[in-house]
């Protein structure tokens, strides 16, 4: 039983670590790294379930009858792509947050937001606005 479920338990541990980083750490980039660990642990879970004793990679070769299950592989290929897509968008957001707030620490951002929660003045951050400011200078 220990060997049979070892992979699943490691997956759970990795998942817990990833989730912990996402929730407990305040640095936005670190959160994204945590997200990557979290997602990768799910990939490991799927791939482990596709494994079959005495099987080989699912590429048809003469003389082999036992192949591991190709379907989870396909799903995880898709999921990896989804993962990188999310990471890219998240990183783009981080760059913009750094520009707008001057920091990428969760606490400092929330502090800045709560300071002028009631001011209705917009906190402009668009690049075009920056360009306009520059022209005025």
């Amino acid at each position, binding site marked *: 039983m220990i060997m*049979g*479920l070892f992979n699943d338990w490691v997956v759970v541990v990795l998942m817990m670590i990833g989730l912990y980083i996402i929730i407990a750490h305040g640095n936005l980039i*670190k959160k994204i790294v945590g997200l990557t660990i979290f997602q990768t642990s799910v990939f490991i879970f799927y791939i482990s379930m596709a494994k079959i004793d005495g099987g080989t*990679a699912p590429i048809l070769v003469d003389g082999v009858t036992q192949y591991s299950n190709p379907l989870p592989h*396909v799903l995880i290929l898709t999921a990896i792509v989804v993962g990188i897509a999310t990471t890219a968008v998240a990183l783009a957001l981080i760059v913009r947050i750094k520009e707008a707030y001057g920091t990428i620490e969760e606490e400092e951002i929330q502090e800045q937001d709560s300071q002028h929660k009631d001011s209705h003045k917009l906190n402009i951050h668009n690049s075009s606005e920056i360009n306009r400011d520059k022209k005025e200078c």
Partner: protein
Amino acid sequence: MKRGELIESLINIVLLSLLVGIAIAIVCMKDLFAVVMLAGIYGLISASFFVVMDAVDVAFTEASVGAGISTLLMLVVITMTGRTEHPTRHKPLLAIFVVVVTGGLLIYGTFDMPYLGAIDAPIHTHVAPRYINESMQEVGVPNIVTAVLASYRAFDTFGEVVVIFTAGIGVLALLSVVRRRDEDSVIDSINDSMHEQHLILRIVSKMMIPFIMLFALYVQFHGDYGPGGGFQAGVIFASAIILYVLLFGLSTARKVINQTLIQLIAAFGVLFYGCVGLVSLLNGGNFFDYNVLSSDPIAGQHLGILLIEWGVGCTVASVMIIIFFNFAGRKEFQQRNGNLIDNISKKNKGI
């Protein structure tokens, strides 16, 4: 038989323990640069793990994405945002609570799971046998993963291409800047002085780039017979271009690669993929039914898979290039307007 399996499970244990170790190290590290490098190593080791688990296609993708592109993007972002993490002041009790509940639930769930490698597990007996036994007659491609990916579940893959396209557009929406021509020359001169130092790197990489592109094409076309396919090929092709940008500067690369054109290629890839479906629709089949593309069903399947892999390759390569160009372009923009952005964030702080 026993010895081989023993070694295999030993490797399995070692790799998984390494993963856990790296993950814990990532929790403790405060230097973001080290964290990102560890994340890259994490990706590489999980790719090795996938090889042990016989998932070669997945391993290939994870190696190119988890260890390659995502590390690169994170490094670019770190250069813009600073590399140390502030110590967390708030109590992590909530986090521990959530994590323990989630983990406990999952551990509870594992007790009724089929064991690793069990031959009689439901997933090996219900849907998968048809893919393994019939795909050669029905699709005619030796790599079953490609057969499932590009034919049985072609629509999922279409979704995947659209996801990556969406990411490209999203990054474009967030980071694109309107450039003015006259500023290029200034940047050029800065770059020139910087790049003279990297003579050896430049020469070696220049030699490498054609080979990388050639390899990308090999992966693209060999996907039917071995691990590989449009996605991996696209990433590799993009990495060749990214290498060029890293060494010769963004503005030099802009002269070679037109950004608008790249966007059009990304759009074209998605459209191309979709059009394969539309053509089969017009030929009287269902969407993505390749059998009707040619008089011989197997030839039709081959044609369909070839074409959609092209679509995937085009979109992935160009989206990766778009993403990198926009990150790098934003950095350039920040350098140019450095003082201005500082002022704005100061102003915002002051309000």
